[in-house]
C-alpha cells in the first residue's frame, strides 16, 4: 500500500496527533503527514471532520476517521500483523480504555492551558494535573505487572494515550516552577517516562518540553505584578 492511501491531518504539538503518529510508527505504517494551521483550517480538514473540525483526522482509502482514541483502535485493528496496541485480554483492554477515557474526559481538561494562566487559576490547574499523576502512579504497577510499560513489555494503548501528554505536563511544571512527575513524587511514572521517551516509535514524534515551551512562549502573558 502506497503512502497516498494513508494521510494524517495534524499538528506537531497536539498530544492527540502525537498519539496517532506513535501508533502508526509502532506498526511501521507509511503515511503522508499534512500539517494543519489551526488558525486557518484546510478545506480537506473541514470536509473530513465537519462535525468537530479538529485534528487528528486519519484518511484511509479516502475515508476519514476522527477522534484520536478511535483512530488508535482503528490502526490496531487494521494493521493487526504489527505489535498489538491494545492488550489481548478483555479485562485488561477495559482497564486501559477506562484510563484513556479518564485522561481525555477528566484529566486533560482539568489542566489544559496551565501554561497560560497565573495565580489561583494556575493553582487549580496544577492540582488537576497532580491528581491524575497520583492516580496513574498507583495504576502503573497493576497494569504493568512488573514490566516496563503499562502495556507490559511493549508500549500499548494506555502508554500512548498518556505518554502523549508528557511534554505539555512538563511545560506546565517549568512555567510554574513545580515538580510533579519525578522520582520523589511519582517514582513509577518517572522511570516509565524515561523509557517512553526513548522508545523508537516515540522518538522524533514526542517533542521535547523545550520545543513545546518555545512554541507556547509567544502566547504566554506575563504574570500580573502585585
Amino acid at each position, binding site marked *: 500500500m502506497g503512502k497516498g492511501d494513508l494521510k494524517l491531518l495534524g499538528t506537531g504539538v497536539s498530544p492527540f496527533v502525537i498519539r496517532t503518529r506513535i501508533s502508526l510508527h509502532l506498526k511501521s505504517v507509511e503515511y503522508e503527514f499534512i500539517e494543519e494551521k489551526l488558525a486557518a483550517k484546510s478545506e480537506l480538514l473541514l470536509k473530513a471532520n465537519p462535525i468537530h473540525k479538529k485534528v487528528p483526522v486519519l484518511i484511509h482509502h479516502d475515508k476519514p*476517521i*476522527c477522534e484520536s482514541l478511535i483512530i488508535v*483502535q482503528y490502526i490496531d485493528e487494521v494493521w493487526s500483523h504489527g505489535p498489538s496496541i491494545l492488550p489481548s485480554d478483555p*479485562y485488561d483492554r477495559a482497564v486501559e480504555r*477506562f484510563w484513556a477515557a479518564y485522561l481525555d474526559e477528566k484529566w486533560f481538561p482539568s489542566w489544559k492551558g496551565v501554561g497560560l494562566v497565573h495565580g489561583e487559576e494556575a493553582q487549580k490547574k496544577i492540582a488537576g494535573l497532580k491528581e491524575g499523576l497520583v492516580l496513574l502512579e498507583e495504576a502503573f504497577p497493576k497494569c504493568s505487572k512488573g514490566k516496563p510499560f503499562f502495556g507490559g513489555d511493549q508500549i500499548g494503548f494506555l502508554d500512548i494515550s498518556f505518554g502523549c501528554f508528557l511534554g505539555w505536563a512538563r511545560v506546565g511544571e517549568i512555567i510554574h516552577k513545580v515538580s510533579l512527575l519525578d522520582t520523589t513524587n511519582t517514582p513509577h511514572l518517572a522511570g516509565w517516562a524515561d523509557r517512553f521517551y526513548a522508545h523508537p516509535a516515540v522518538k522524533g514524534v514526542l517533542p521535547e518540553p523545550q520545543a513545546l515551551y518555545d512554541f507556547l512562549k509567544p502566547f504566554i502573558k506575563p504574570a500580573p505584578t502585585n
Partner: protein
Amino acid sequence: MAEEEVKLHGAWGSPFSKRVEFALKLKGIHYHYIEEEVLTKNKSPELLKYNPVHKKIPVLLHKGRPIAESQVILEYIDETWKGYPILPQEPYERATARFWARFIDEKCWPSVWSSFSEGKKEEAIENLKLLEKELEGKKFFGGEKIGFVDIVANFIAYWVPLIEEATGKQLLGEEFPALCRWKDEYVSSAVIKEHLPSRDKLVAHFRARFPSN
C-alpha cells in the same frame, strides 16, 4: 459448571445503567443486580471501592473484577461474550460506531439536558439534526438490528420523550422523522421493551427535576 458471577451496580432510572442491562440481556447473560441509591447519594461502600475514581454507576463486576464507564463496559461485554454482536466487525464501521457513541455522550447528552434545564435548545437541535442525518434510511443506527450506537442513544429513545411529557417542552419534533420512527421501533423491540424503567416513576421524577412552562 457454576456460572461465572456477573454483578451490576446500577440505578433504576439511569440510562447509563440501562445501557449495560440492555447489552447483558441482548447477549442472554444472567447477572445479579444491585440497586444503588444515587439520588440520595447514599452510595454503597462496594461502589466506592469498585469505582473510586468516579464513584458512579454503572459498575460491572465479572469474576470479582470491576469495570466502570458504560461505553467501556459495553465493549467488554461484546468482547467477552459471543452471540449477539453489539459492535460491527469491520474496522471502519467500528470506528464510525465509536465516533457516534462518543458524539452522543460528549455533545448530545449535555446539550439535551441543558435544553430542558436551561431552555437553551439550539445546540441540542443541531446535535439531533446530525444524528437524524446519520440514521436516515436505516432501521437502527446499527442497521437491521440494535447495535452499539442504539444502546448508547437509549436516553433519546425513552428518557427524552418522558422529559417532554413531564415538562411540556418538545424537543423531538416533526423535523426529526427518522429519530421519531427509530425511538418507537427501539422501545417496542423484543428485549428492550421488557427492561425499560417505569414510565410513571420517571415522569414523576422529571416533573420534580425540571422547571415546566
